[in-house]
């Protein structure tokens, strides 16, 4: 379970930070930045997560090993972190972009009229308001990420689901343990969703 949470938290935070950057780039007036961000988002959202993970598992470790020069280094977890972060960033970017766009143009005008720069306006005025509105959506995405983190098995990494599976094989209780793992996911996600629902009522 620790591994699952580890991936959820690391990829959640890294994805949100990178996603914010990409969202701001996508909304920028600079056509090159905007096109780069759009390409990134479209590319990652068009590829299944399993494929992203496999690429990072099969290609990137070899590449890094060649660079570092230590063939026995285990960087599967690092690869998983990076793959999940990059993948999640594309989803977070879209949520954050919508959040930013939901703040009225007048707020931007008011901030600029006070002499604040575009950067200050974004950082002090727009993003704090946008994030407040987006909390429920960001958490929902985190719940999805939590579930998706079970896919790390394709990288040969063991997580909560993997442990349950292996234990089941060892003790001959595979069906029970898979049901058990499913139930745990269900309980956690249901609890989190309920929380998000309550939060959503509070913010609106």
């Amino acid at each position, binding site marked *: 379970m620790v591994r699952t949470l580890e991936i959820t938290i690391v990829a959640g935070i890294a994805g949100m930070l990178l996603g914010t950057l990409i969202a701001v780039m996508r909304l920028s007036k600079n056509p090159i930045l905007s096109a780069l961000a759009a390409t990134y988002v479209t590319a990652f959202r068009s590829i299944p997560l399993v494929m992203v993970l496999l690429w990072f598992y099969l290609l990137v470790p070899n590449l890094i090993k060649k660079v570092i020069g230590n063939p026995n280094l285990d960087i599967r977890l690092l690869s998983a972190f990076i793959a999940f972060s990059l993948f999640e960033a594309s989803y977070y970017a879209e949520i954050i972009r919508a959040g930013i766009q939901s703040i009225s143009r007048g707020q931007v005008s*008011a901030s600029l009229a006070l002499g604040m720069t575009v950067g200050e306006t974004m950082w002090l005025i727009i993003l704090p308001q946008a994030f407040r509105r987006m909390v429920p959506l960001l958490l929902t995405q985190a719940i999805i990420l939590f579930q998706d983190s079970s896919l790390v098995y394709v990288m040969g990494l063991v997580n909560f689901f993997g442990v349950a599976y292996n234990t089941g094989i060892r003790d001959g209780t595979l069906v029970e343990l898979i049901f058990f793992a499913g139930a745990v996911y269900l309980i956690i996600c249901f609890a989190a969703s309920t929380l998000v629902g309550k939060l959503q009522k509070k913010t609106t």
Partner: protein
Amino acid sequence: MISIQNISKWYGEFNVLKECSTKVNKGEVVIVCGPSGSGKSTLIKCVNGLETFQKGDIFVDGVSVTNKKTNLSKLRSRVGMVFQHFELFPHLSVLQNLMVAQCRVLKRGAKESADKGMKLLKMVGLQAHAAKYPAQMSGGQQQRVAIARALAMDPIAMLFDEPTSALDPEMIREVLDVMVNLAKQGMTMMVVTHEMGFAREVADRVIFMDQGQIVEDKPKTNFFKSPETDRAQLFLSKILSH
């Protein structure tokens, strides 16, 4: 103080501003009125570069708005602006609304900004509301905070874009009172408004716009007594008769 020179603006094919020129001298209060869609809000937003324009130039205290070398943020920090929909920052308290730009743009310390903020809140009669959030206040109170926020930057001139249009009738007076006081203190003001009572009280000049053009630009008494154009006469008769 503010010199608008032959500015024209197009939205695609649509010509919003046509060769507009006027001047606002130091200490002058100039009212901009006209039917909706006549370009008055667009014109006032050009003054601090919130709107761009394709032709002509505007100088604020001798600084060109269009010159690429102009530090537009600095120019804007010297010109206060008040919006139709207040545009207070909802995630900040009233006092923080007044402090954020002072700290960031003018690099004033927190204590100094807060003192200045409280002084201005007192001036608009809202010192008791400093810790509130904008959503907890009435429209009239919010607009008074917005005026105080603009004044906190020690502006050399103030722009008002229909400051009372979004207010319930009983709240218009409290906002106008603040503006009248400001005018009497000698603030240079450019005000887009339909409040002709306010214009009569404090205006030095009245500009009448229609279809993107400045149709009349004359001292207040002349404007109200003898508007030259039919369009201005029609506008006045409509707006004063109700």
